[in-house]
């Protein structure tokens, strides 16, 4: 279970004339559904909200807890439970060859080199990617790269996956492939997206606007609220 306890991020003013900037207004949430979508305009605070779950961003007010661990003070424990998938897989993949990158995720859990290689191949096989094991990450298509990045996250065995616009850079076929792959996972998945069809597949959706969560409910209703917000400037119009 993920809990936001009045958690928010307000950046202090840089000059006396400026006002402090609210990136994410304090919010209280309990996120337990299997699939949760986060939607909203660019710069609305979606990524900040997601990054708080993994501890990449610490709240300036309140706390965020994952399975009872505080994301700001117990980042190591949190990250062993929460994987994070970035928009651009090349930002995420560190090693030049696919299996080497998966092995990097397993370095702590598998000290023996051969056991680590076998575990990396098994992790690739679970997503049907074993044929990519020896390929350079630079030779892969965008979709393959994102699936490999997903595999590198899942290999570490976390039970929550946070994905920040994972389909944004993908073509239609790879977009659908990734959505189906995410759908089939046992892990809880929380994802930000601009693809409203993808958002509508979730069990619950949060609509973020100007640093505030302006709608929290069933995904279909959140998508409808977002459309109203864009068209009329209000979720209730």
């Amino acid at each position, binding site marked *: 279970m993920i809990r936001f306890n009045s958690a928010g991020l307000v950046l202090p003013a840089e000059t006396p004339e400026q006002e402090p900037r609210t990136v994410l207004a304090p919010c209280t949430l309990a996120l337990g559904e299997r699939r949760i979508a986060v939607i909203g305009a660019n710069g609305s605070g979606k990524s900040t909200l997601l990054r708080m779950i993994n501890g990449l961003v610490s709240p300036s007010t309140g706390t965020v807890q994952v399975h009872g661990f505080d994301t700001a003070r117990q980042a190591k424990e949190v990250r*062993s439970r929460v994987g*994070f998938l970035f928009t651009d897989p090349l930002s*995420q993949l560190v090693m*030049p*060859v696919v299996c*080497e990158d998966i*092995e990097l995720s397993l*370095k702590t859990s598998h000290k023996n080199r051969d056991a680590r290689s076998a575990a990396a191949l098994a992790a690739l096989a679970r997503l049907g990617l074993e044929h990519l094991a020896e390929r350079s990450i*630079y030779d892969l298509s965008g979709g393959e790269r994102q699936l490999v990045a997903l595999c590198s996250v899942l290999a570490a065995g976390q039970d929550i996956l946070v994905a920040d616009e994972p389909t944004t850079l993908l073509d239609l076929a790879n977009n659908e492939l990734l959505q189906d792959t995410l759908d089939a996972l046992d892990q809880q998945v929380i994802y930000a997206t601009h693809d409203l069809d993808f958002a509508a597949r979730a069990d619950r959706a949060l609509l973020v606007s100007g640093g505030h969560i302006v709608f929290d409910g069933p995904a279909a209703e959140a998508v409808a609220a977002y459309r109203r917000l864009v068209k009329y400037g209000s979720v209730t119009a």
Partner: protein
Amino acid sequence: MSASHQMLLGHYLSGNSVVHRTPLALKYLIVLLVGAAVLLWRIPAVGLGALALSVGLFALAGPRVLRAWAAPLRHLWWVFVILGIYQSILNTPLFAVTLVSGMLAAVQCGRLVLLTTTQAALLDGLERAASPVRLVGGNPATIALAVALMLRSIPAIATSVQEVSDAAKARGIQRNPATLAAPVVINTVAYAQRTSDALAARGIMERS
């Protein structure tokens, strides 16, 4: 990231040749011996012999690796030409041949290690080599990862230079190094930030 940038540095080419299977320590020893030989015996026979040896070792590693032998020449031929002309004028043409061939041989032997060894194996080797830092409270794994990240960053920055240069050309702006510097530096800092986020998110290296 362009393939040429990868090939220039030496990007692992999978294979099962005798060179691929040679232990990392022995590969390093060959690099050391070739480097020492061309430094200590500055005669054409040693320089050209070392160069021929590098071609032989590349051939032994398989046709894909052999095809990669010429990559530095395609991109950096002008460096070797300038060096050769400079040494011909300053010393003798024979010395220029010795120096350029010896230098190229040493570079090629170094590249052969990168072309025939997985980065994971390189990291493991480096980690073992750096293990004495434990005595002073250091972490060899962190040192090895830092080197891996440095290797990964070089082609990324080269690609950034190329992209900024292309963007400037597309807008009709002259290729002025001063104009290109600021966006490349900003891109590099952003790249470093993304890498840091990715490592932190994967729990590989916590940010302070």
